[in-house]
């Protein structure tokens, strides 16, 4: 055991303090430079907003875009465990990496297209139930009633529990003998299920967990959206004799759209990229039966040490999401509310 000594405490404070000081100084210097260059020298009309945005963009560039570019560079390399320091880069390596994504199993058994199909199922089922469950609970909560605050607080609990804990706790609950799921099934007189050793059931198990995890976020977003809809619309609809369902279709849904569109896009992207739940519960197993694209990506890179291949694979996954988002935005009319 390592005790938490004063040395360790002060080391943590000193190092994070130093980092914060450097970061804040960096922001001030960047803004100062931007002010001098844009405002004083160039007399740029939008010097002020530019100045406010620059630090965030520099950070995003350095820690998201640069690694992204570096990833693309690695995609054209033959980097692997044995060639970590000395790897070569070339078009032919890149071609091979990208072709390998589609040609061979990504890890040992499952091919790219199987994984893609499984990821699409995973995302669709999850987001569908997130939105459905979130909408249902938000509608129930969006009325004057007793105990509303208590319900709201308790319903948010799955979101408030760190995902690592939630995933590992659920893993225990799917234990064949001692898990809640099978104990309940047996008490109801049903046969226990091999949750984690049968690929099909394992996949159902991880989906159930992720649905449980994701409903509160949608519920909160939708509740916020519902509360912003003025009751005058409903009054008018009622005077016109609209039924509950008609009000829902012609008032609630259209007015909820601007809130729902970004929430659904984020939900899809986050679910598509969700690594924790599957990796912590099944590690993608059994027999890679619950792997989705991102878990197999992680395994290809950090368990099989196929760095160059992994980089190409990551790029393919990113492009899929990008194309999806572009289509979705076009179809739904996108973020009109956000541009004005």
């Amino acid at each position, binding site marked *: 055991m390592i005790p938490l000594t004063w040395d360790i*405490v002060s080391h943590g404070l000193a190092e*994070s303090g130093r980092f*914060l000081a450097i970061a804040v100084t960096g922001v001030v210097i960047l803004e100062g430079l931007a002010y001098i260059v844009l405002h004083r020298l160039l007399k740029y009309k939008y010097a002020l907003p530019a100045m406010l945005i620059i630090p965030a963009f520099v*950070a995003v560039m350095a820690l998201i875009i640069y690694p992204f570019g570096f990833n693309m560079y690695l995609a054209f390399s033959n980097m692997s465990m044995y060639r970590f320091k000395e790897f070569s880069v070339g078009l032919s390596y890149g071609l091979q990496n990208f072709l390998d994504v589609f040609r061979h199993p990504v890890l040992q058994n499952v091919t790219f297209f199987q994984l893609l199909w499984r990821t699409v199922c995973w995302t669709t089922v999850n987001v569908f139930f997130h939105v459905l469950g979130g909408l249902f609970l938000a509608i*129930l909560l969006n*009325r004057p*009633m007793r105990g509303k605050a208590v319900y709201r607080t308790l319903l948010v609990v799955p979101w408030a*529990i760190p995902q690592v804990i939630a995933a590992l706790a659920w893993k225990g609950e799917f234990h064949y003998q001692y898990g809640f799921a099978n104990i309940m099934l047996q008490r109801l007189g049903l046969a226990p299920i091999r949750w984690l050793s049968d690929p099909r059931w394992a996949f159902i198990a991880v989906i159930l967990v992720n649905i449980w995890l994701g409903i509160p976020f949608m519920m909160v977003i939708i509740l916020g959206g519902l509360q912003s809809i003025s009751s005058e619309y409903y009054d008018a609809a009622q005077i016109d004799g609209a039924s509950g369902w008609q009000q829902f279709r012609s008032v609630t849904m259209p007015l909820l759209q601007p809130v729902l569109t970004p929430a659904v896009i984020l939900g899809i992207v986050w679910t598509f990229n969700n690594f924790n739940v599957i990796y912590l519960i099944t590690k993608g197993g059994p027999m890679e039966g619950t792997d989705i694209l991102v878990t197999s990506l992680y395994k290809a890179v950090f368990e099989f040490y196929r760095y160059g291949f992994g*980089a190409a694979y990551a790029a393919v996954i990113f492009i899929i999401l990008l194309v999806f988002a572009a289509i979705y935005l076009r179809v739904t009319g996108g973020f009109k509310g*956000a541009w004005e």
Partner: protein
Amino acid sequence: MQVGTGRHRGFFTSARGDSPAKRLLIHVTLILACAVAVYPFLRVVSISLRPGSALLSTDLALIPEGATFNNYRTLIFEKDFTIWLWNSLVVAIATVIIGVLLAATAAYAFSRWKFPGRRQGLVFLLTTQMLPPSMLLLPIYVMVVKLRLFNTYTGMILAYSVGAVPFSIWLLKGYYDTVPRELEEAAMVDGAGPIAAFYRIILPLSTPALAIAGLFSFMTAWSEFMMARVMLQKATMFTWPVGFQKLLDQFSTQWGLFAAASVLVAIPAMLLFLYSSRWLISGLTLGGVKG
């Protein structure tokens, strides 16, 4: 015909209000939903209180027979648990400070000025959310190795602080949009510059959104596992998600320790969440809602 004026009436609510039967049904549904939401955590609490002899049991009682705090004692006094908590805390707090600082100002520019490239900027930020986190993991890993930031707080803070910024910018921009411009204009008439107006008017009014952005940054850093697992090899630097994994590897039968550790880790996060939950709904407008 009486027309209701309640602001929060849902579409199922008739002007005359709900019948008692319907109200009962709604409460029953909500209680069931709450049970589903909370029960798994209560089970973890229950397992953490079990004495060593009863760890593997098919008993579903929430307060186990012979309940004891032994698991907690072992965890705090005989394991590295307190170190993991400290490390996670240091990294998470620094991440929140940097993330919110960067996002709060950038979002203000996006909300108040129509400069060229504004739309593209917002789309660009959204696009960054599409990068699979495991995609950035390898490049960041290589960068961290090269910068010799392996096993350091600096490396972790660096890797985490920017991750939540794009989402925070969207979140805060959506919220600033709902703050009437007239408030700053009035302040500027009184002689304040735009920056002073931002600090004195906008920031105080945006507490809900700032709290939520901070909460998200905190939660991401507090329970991040993938990056930490790759970047931390030294036992004194482990954050709790990494430590947990080791705990589970080493003591695969000691469910009780894991459960106790989970409770101790989940409680601060949950308290923070519940404390900010009063801001959660108003703070999370995601750029869509006006007014």
